[in-house]
């Protein structure tokens, strides 16, 4: 029993809300729609209404509950410390129990994600079917050829021809003396942004770590529990923890903000009271975002010169989800030649939020507009971030706006600098039109 399904805990959490309305200032969606029912105090009112039997999880109530990027802005700005994320995740579980998951979700969660090897096989095949489903555009990906239940305008990134975990080879001898670090890649790095995976692997190895890359690791389960399917999410957490237990690493690193917050925060909650409770707690304490890990472990800053300007977007699940603010900025600032430019409102949600951007495409894009403005004001050549979903969102939105913002993972830049050691300046051609 945890915030996913403990009614007594829900009561205590709900009581903390004094309805002051401070959450409004921190909600990217309220700032667009201006309706009380989407701000945290309104959503909390709806959760209470259902608890008190005043109403059921109607279609409209569920819509309000899901009109949310789970950016944690409301929680961070709440003067009384209401645990909004926990309340909303619990409410989503409750709503799914009452109304069912719906056909598509049921199929994907129970039929596919429930089964790690089937999921892997399908995504491997997906790399070949991608061109059949999407029209390839110049730029970050392509638009759907057929109605796939997502906006026909949306640019979906290409699936990598070979998943990262299939193609990567760890350097056995170099790292033998260092810490044994298990790299939990998550789906986006494994299937889409494989370059990020290679960068993480390279940087860890250059710092003497012995990297463990279990090919059997599975999706972290965030899309599943954020859609209310606590049963499948619990199985997935248990499965991943068993994989970790088999390898018994010194540390787990993630390079995906969402996977990191799942392992650190939600796995212990998902596993509470079950056989994996202890393992979940133990491994949560040893999970680090890659930027956090490098800084904590005292990494060797790279010396290759990269003459370019870069700004940084804080992923919600890295900043508010894991409390990581300094580390990625330090990594970027330490790269020789790199000029770090802080953007306005760097901590504001980009509007992506995984499945939210599929279900609420227009609203999601309208939130991203502000992020693009902030990025452009810095006139930086690239924006670094630590989350694949944010990257996908910013790339898509900037492609829609016809500006082609270059989005990279912080670690890709760090790796670039290592690779440039002993070579001439590797900076982008300044002002060559490649920038923002």
């Amino acid at each position, binding site marked *: 029993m945890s915030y996913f399904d403990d009614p007594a805990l829900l009561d205590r959490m709900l009581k903390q809300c004094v*309805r002051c*309305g401070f959450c409004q*200032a921190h909600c990217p969606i309220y700032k667009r729609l201006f*309706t*009380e*029912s989407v701000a945290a105090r309104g959503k909390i009112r*709806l959760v209470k209404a259902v608890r008190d039997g005043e109403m059921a999880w109607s279609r409209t109530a569920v819509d309000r509950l899901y009109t949310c990027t789970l950016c944690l802005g409301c929680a961070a700005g709440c003067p009384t410390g209401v645990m909004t994320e926990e309340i909303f995740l619990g409410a989503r579980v409750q709503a799914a129990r009452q109304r069912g998951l719906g056909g598509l979700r049921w199929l994907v969660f129970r039929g596919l994600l429930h089964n790690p090897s089937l999921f892997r096989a399908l995504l491997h095949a997906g790399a070949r079917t991608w061109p059949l489903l999407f029209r390839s555009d110049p730029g970050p990906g392509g638009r759907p050829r057929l109605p796939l239940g997502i906006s026909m305008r949306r640019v979906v990134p290409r699936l990598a021809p070979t998943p990262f975990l299939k193609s990567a080879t760890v350097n056995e001898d170099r790292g033998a003396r260092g810490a044994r670090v298990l790299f939990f890649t998550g789906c986006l790095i494994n299937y889409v942004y494989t370059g990020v995976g290679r960068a993480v692997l390279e940087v860890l190895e250059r710092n003497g770590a012995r990297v463990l890359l279990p090919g059997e690791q599975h999706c972290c389960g965030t899309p599943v529990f954020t859609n209310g399917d606590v049963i499948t999410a619990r199985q997935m957490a248990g499965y991943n923890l068993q994989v970790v237990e088999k390898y018994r690493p010194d540390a787990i690193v993630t390079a995906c903000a969402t996977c990191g917050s799942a392992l650190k925060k939600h796995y212990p909650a998902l596993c509470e009271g079950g056989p994996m409770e202890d393992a979940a707690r133990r491994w949560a304490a040893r999970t680090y975002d890659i930027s956090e890990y490098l800084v904590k472990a005292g990494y060797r800053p790279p010396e290759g010169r990269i003459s370019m300007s870069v700004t940084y977007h804080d992923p919600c699940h890295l900043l508010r989800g894991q409390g990581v603010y300094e580390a990625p900025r330090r990594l970027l600032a330490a790269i020789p030649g790199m000029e770090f430019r802080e953007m306005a409102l760097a901590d504001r949600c980009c509007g992506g939020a995984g499945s939210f951007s599929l279900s609420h495409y227009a609203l999601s894009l309208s939130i991203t507009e502000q992020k693009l403005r902030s990025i452009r004001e810095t006139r930086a050549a690239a924006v670094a971030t630590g989350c694949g979903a944010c990257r996908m969102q910013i790339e898509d939105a900037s492609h829609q706006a016809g500006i082609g913002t270059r989005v990279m993972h912080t670690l890709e830049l760090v790796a670039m600098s290592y690779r440039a050691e002993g070579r001439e300046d590797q900076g982008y051609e300044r002002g060559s039109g490649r920038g923002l």
Partner: protein
Amino acid sequence: MLSFEVIRELRDALGRDRVLTDIEDLVCYAFDAAGGLDEHVPGVIVMPETAGEVQAVVRIADRYSLPVYPRGSGTNLSGGTLPERGGVVVSLLRMNRILEVDTDNLTATVEPGVIIQDLNDACAPYGLMYPPDPGTVAQATMGGSVAECSGGLRGLKYGVTKHYVLGLSVVLPDGEMARFGGKTVKNVSGYDMVHLFTGSEGTLGIITEITVKLLPLPEYRRTMMAAFLDLDSAGRAVARIIEGRVIPATLEILDNTTIRAVEEYNRCGLPLDAAAILLIEVDGVKEAVEREAAKVMAALLDSGASFVRLAETEREREQLWTARRTALPALSRVRPSMMVEDATVPRNRVPEMLKEIRTIAEKYGVIIGTMGHAGDGNLHPTILTDISDEQEMVRVRQAIDEVYAAALKLGGTLSGEHGIGRTKQKYMEMEFSQAALSAMRAVKRALDPKGLFNPGKLVGEV
């Protein structure tokens, strides 16, 4: 429930998506930030985007004799936005354009849905500011804060909302539009309707455009904190500061209950034995500020402060402010619910008022932490309770009654900045004579003969 025709007419006027009728939306407008009140679900919520649309809505409401409840961010602490009789909630959040920042006349003209902080962000590049700064500056709307006449932490030196409003456009209860005041500092043409509508709590009409005065941003500031072992010394310090003819921008007081809660919440090194802490900030031209800061420091030491600090860096300033900024969050964690009151007394009665509050808290066995604006006498006795505990709430209500009685006894007023709304309605006859109340009700009747605008609030039944 409203009739189908009303909804259809509203939809014809505004479009379907700006007329909310789902119960899931309606229940979220049944409350505001005031604690311990019953909820009231409105019949419909409309979100006009222009003054013309506001007029259309008001005319429909007038034709069907429906109550009208103007609403900004719903962050007021007096129940002023509660739609007690169903009817139409008019949310003005979509009218949120800053129409002009006039750097020659030092004015800004805004629509009512503009957030106060957003106006300040727009003025800052010109070296200007809009001084009223209620605690909800990042949430509250200009329309809401004019209608409630909000105050804030800088009231002593800079005054409150009414000292900045120069002009208003208002949709009157019959749907006609009126413009009062303008851009000029001086304006004595006609009755001062601008100030009648400022603080009218939505009972006289809907404000659709606001022109406010701006001031230059102060170039320099110094921040000080002092602790006192007894309330009288703290009071003496406030008096000495004023005697020295210094008007600080901020002169805040925190009582012992608040100090303990803050220290428990974020260990910032406050003296737990202090009866009160004062936080003082002086701002303006550098040379003047340095002289004023020296005078304040001397006044603090003369009055027997047990410890005094003067911030030397921006970081130290932030540290001193932490205690005040986190006072409310800290207090809110002591018990499940919190009710923030705003009883206000003349400046020199602040120590007496704090003692009265302590006596009342002991008498009824309730926890009251008090912080507030010692400089302008506006105190916030904050009752920490559990609104689901009916027995305790009986005592809480009695204690609040006595707090307001005490404020009036000391020559104060019921509300410094939160408004009368619903929560302080019952005390109005304690502050005002029948003649005074009749005069106010006559104004209400003259402008809103059907009594449809935020009925029952401020002046009560008409």
